[in-house]
């Protein structure tokens, strides 16, 4: 029986269910010191001094550091998507000369007890000469007196845009924005580090996402040989893009354990998390489309401003790069330009969050298509059909690059995905029903949005599969787990390609001392990359197992079969069988078999790719608006998602539903609001509102396998981000529909106060008002 395609229960759940898991806060060492960070209370200012004298006298306080104490450690470098000229915008591990956002680490206190460390941190006085903050990315200020706050411009373009606009029968132009929100995993960040003096080895626990990269970065920053640093990933309480990147606190913990020669522990609290861990989204777009008379979009010209916050962190310009590169989505769009301004402001620095650049881009693109449909009085779904890339055009060269790889949609049946959604919704009947309810005065609406995701970022992944003496199978990978179920998926692939029993397989990840390289877990890459490497290593190992077994059974390996961990002669039910343990045992050191086949049943494989895979799908939402409380309730939600091939449908369903919840949060609830002084107003879960079960509709996830990827042996595409991608777009369209105002929604999240304004506009203008064309779009003919 094949494990692929089966909804097997997760192999990683037992410790998580029984309270035996080891999250970073659960890791402790005897004699450990606790670090507490003293953070900037103001958004922008010049540091006059940091007064630590009183605090240093407190019993139990070991030391207090400010910038001067770590001046020898360079700022945190970029992990990906680097463009020239970004270096001056990197974040120092402690604020140096200036503070650039509320929450920026200015000093750190080290004490014997966590409560004492917090008391002591309260006593550190930071003298700051406050400056006016820059808070508007569309009006860049200065990063330093002699350096602009516009750190980079990202440009992606193809085709003849001038001609497209010259030929257009309609031009539609919008100004749209997506609010500042982020991953906000339930576990806050943390780092625990130890320094072994004898072996001069640093170990850091609490690593996540990209342990191997972070080892390299830490080695370089701390002046250590890479072999003398090891990172250890324990259980990780969610990632979503923000967790596991290298942050100032991680470096400080490592530097301090080396300095004090004591284990060092830092656990972030929730307030810190909301002001110090990467924010995301927060873009303003001005987008223009040239449209032919039949609704075919001839060209799109987009300009956007990314509010990067106080510094450029590890992701460099990843979010803007992806926004621009994937903005055109599933549509042909023969001419295209997107210009992104990456602008520093005095807010928390921003990075990636699940479907980075696509949640924003899909909102903007699908708003644009809704506006075109309204302008041309075409059904929004039909307008999309006119513009979709057809299956005969695959593979489709988009004409731009993303994350350093050229964007080539590997496979896709976009119209079929749309048809699947339309059939599931019973679209015509549903539209009629909703129109009837609206006629009776209800504020109810339907929105549909399409998207293309990307997944499986290379360049490579390495996997080693070993069979132990007891017949147990160990898969070691440099990938990481953030709770997505990768252990189970990797084990399913291994079980199938090796012929082992799933229960015999253990998957080890995120340990830099067990495998030399690893890319980690991001960009929905693990099933594609690690899965493919696992398939190959497992298949190679099967050949080796059968070779040894052939010798033992005096049979031709080609006549042997390996299933469920048992080797038997094909088509001979009564013949003798071997277990994996017996084959492994035959390779005992010094044995004749070991001489012939080597001492160990082990295979290593590296899977390499130069292109990403592009899953795609459809979101649809039905919303109801309460005209008295201004609450917008999502009452039905549908995601159709083509992942090429589903290894474990239950886990994919979980990814989609969970991501949809985050998408709904970003569309209606979640926002990091700042006041005019740059003070963050969402610093607790009372202010930063995430969906509870009460805000969640029943989400239907339809997982399809219409277009397997030709780029990997499994045919898979990543499943992590499709569930969030077009949520803002679909909900915005549904709210428009409910209000009867096409184009009403121009900004996310649609919080009750914004809904109040929209409803006020509706009662003033009447239901026939066309809201689109907010920056004076002019229709023209000929």
């Amino acid at each position, binding site marked *: 029986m094949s494990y692929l395609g089966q909804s097997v229960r997760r192999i990683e759940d037992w410790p*998580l269910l029984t309270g035996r898991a080891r999250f970073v806060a659960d890791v402790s060492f005897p004699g450990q010191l606790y670090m507490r960070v003293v953070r900037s209370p103001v958004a922008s200012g010049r540091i006059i001094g940091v007064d630590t004298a009183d605090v240093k006298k407190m019993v139990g306080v070991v030391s207090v550091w400010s910038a001067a104490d770590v001046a020898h450690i360079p700022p945190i470098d970029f992990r990906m998507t680097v463009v020239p000229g970004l270096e001056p915008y990197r974040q120092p591990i402690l604020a140096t000369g200036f503070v650039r956002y509320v929450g920026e680490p200015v000093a750190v206190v080290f004490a014997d007890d966590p409560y004492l460390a917090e008391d002591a941190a309260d006593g550190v006085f930071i003298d700051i000469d406050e400056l006016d903050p820059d808070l508007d990315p569309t009006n860049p200020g200065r990063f330093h007196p002699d350096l602009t706050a516009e750190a980079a411009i990202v440009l992606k373009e193809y085709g003849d845009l001038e001609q497209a606009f010259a030929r257009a029968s309609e031009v539609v132009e919008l100004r749209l924005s997506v609010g500042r929100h982020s991953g906000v995993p339930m576990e806050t960040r943390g780092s625990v580090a130890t320094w072994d003096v004898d072996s001069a080895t640093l170990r850091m626990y609490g690593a996540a996402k990209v342990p191997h990269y972070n080892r390299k970065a830490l080695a370089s920053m701390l002046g250590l040989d890479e072999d003398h640093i090891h990172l250890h990933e324990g259980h990780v309480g969610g990632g979503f893009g923000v967790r596991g990147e290298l942050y100032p606190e991680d470096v400080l913990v490592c530097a301090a354990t080396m300095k004090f020669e004591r284990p060092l522990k830092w656990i972030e609290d929730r307030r810190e998390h909301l002001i110090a861990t990467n924010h995301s989204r927060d873009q303003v777009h001005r987008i223009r489309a040239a449209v032919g008379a039949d609704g075919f979009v001839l060209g799109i010209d987009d300009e956007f401003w990314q509010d990067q916050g106080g510094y450029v962190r590890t992701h460099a310009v990843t979010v803007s790069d992806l926004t621009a590169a994937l903005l055109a989505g599933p549509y042909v769009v023969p001419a295209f330009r997107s210009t992104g301004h990456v602008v520093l402001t005095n807010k928390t620095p921003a990075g990636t969050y699940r479907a980075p650049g696509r949640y924003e881009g899909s909102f903007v693109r699908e708003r644009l298509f809704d506006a075109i449909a309204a302008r041309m009085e075409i059904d929004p779904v039909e307008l999309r059909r006119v513009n979709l890339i057809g299956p005969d055009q695959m593979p489709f060269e988009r004409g731009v690059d993303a994350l350093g790889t050229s964007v080539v949609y590997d496979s896709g049946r976009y119209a079929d995905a749309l048809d699947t959604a339309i059939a599931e919704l019973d679209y015509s009947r549903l539209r009629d029903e909703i129109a009837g309810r609206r006629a009776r005065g209800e504020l109810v609406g339907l929105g549909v949005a399409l998207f293309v995701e990307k997944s499986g970022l290379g360049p490579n992944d390495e996997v080693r599969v070993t069979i132990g003496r007891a017949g147990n199978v160990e898969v070691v990978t440099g990938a990481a787990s953030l709770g997505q179920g990768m252990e189970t998926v990797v084990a399913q692939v291994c079980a199938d390609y090796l012929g082992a029993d799933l229960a015999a397989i253990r998957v080890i990840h995120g340990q830099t001392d067990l495998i030399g390289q690893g890319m980690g877990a991001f960009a929905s890459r693990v099933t594609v990359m690690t899965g493919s490497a696992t398939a190959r290593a497992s298949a190679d190992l099967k050949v080796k197992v059968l070779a040894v077994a052939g010798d033992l059974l005096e049979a031709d390996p080609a006549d042997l079969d390996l299933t469920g961990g048992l080797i038997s002669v094909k088509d001979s039910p009564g013949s003798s069988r071997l277990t994996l343990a017996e084959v492994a045992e035959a390779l005992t050191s010094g044995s004749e078999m070991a001489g012939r086949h080597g001492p160990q049943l082990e295979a290593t494989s590296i899977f390499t790719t130069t292109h990403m895979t592009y899953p795609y799908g459809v979101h649809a939402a039905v919303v109801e608006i309460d005209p008295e409380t201004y609450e917008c309730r999502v009452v039905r939600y549908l995601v159709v998602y083509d992942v090429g091939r589903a290894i474990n449908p239950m886990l994919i369903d979980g990814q989609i539903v969970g991501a949809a919840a985050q998408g709904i949060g970003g569309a209606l609830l979640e926002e990091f609001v700042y006041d005019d002084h740059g003070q963050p107003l969402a610093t607790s879960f009372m202010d930063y509102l995430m969906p509870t079960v009460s805000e969640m509709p029943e989400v239907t996830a339809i997982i399809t396998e219409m277009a397997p990827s030709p780029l990997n042996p499994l045919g898979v595409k990543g499943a992590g981000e499709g569930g969030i991608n077009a949520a803002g777009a679909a909900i915005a369209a549904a709210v428009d529909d409910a209000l009867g105002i096409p184009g009403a929604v121009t900004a996310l999240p649609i919080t009750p106060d914004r809904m109040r304004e929209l409803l006020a506009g509706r009662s003033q203008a009447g239901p026939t008002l066309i809201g689109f064309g907010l920056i004076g779009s002019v229709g023209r003919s000929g």
Partner: protein
Amino acid sequence: MSQVDVRLSVNGELHAIRVEPRLTLADALRDRCGLTGTHLGCEHGVCGACTVLVDGLPVRSCLMFAVQCNDVPIATVEGLSDGVSLHPLQQAFWDHHGLQCGFCTPGFLMLAVGALAENPDPTDDELRQILSSNLCRCTGYQNIVTAVKAAAEQMRGGTAPGAPSIS
């Protein structure tokens, strides 16, 4: 700061500890009793990851002090399973994929244990009301609701709907 003697009775086991009066119950359980299954997600009483039972009722252990729990029975996630078989709620969370990262899971389990003890047969609305006490960032809650319903039915003596799983 002066210290106070406290006797914490956790999962039937007595822990005699000496604590600062300001030590939260959550920190006492985690750092002084070695029971790290109780997680801290916000430390201001919203997320519910730290939910434990105090005298049978679900409470936020981040909002209680250890000294308030002297000689009061406390139950944490570590006490749900005997290490061989799972509690019906744990089993249902496993069967129905009611967890992803698992950080919020102990809080949801203890919330459900306490709530079902009080009302073994909640309506769907009542159940959603109860579960809206806690935050989960991974699952979108759908499978948590399914799992708790299945477990509730089994705990009432009925048969839980079949799990969608093969192993």
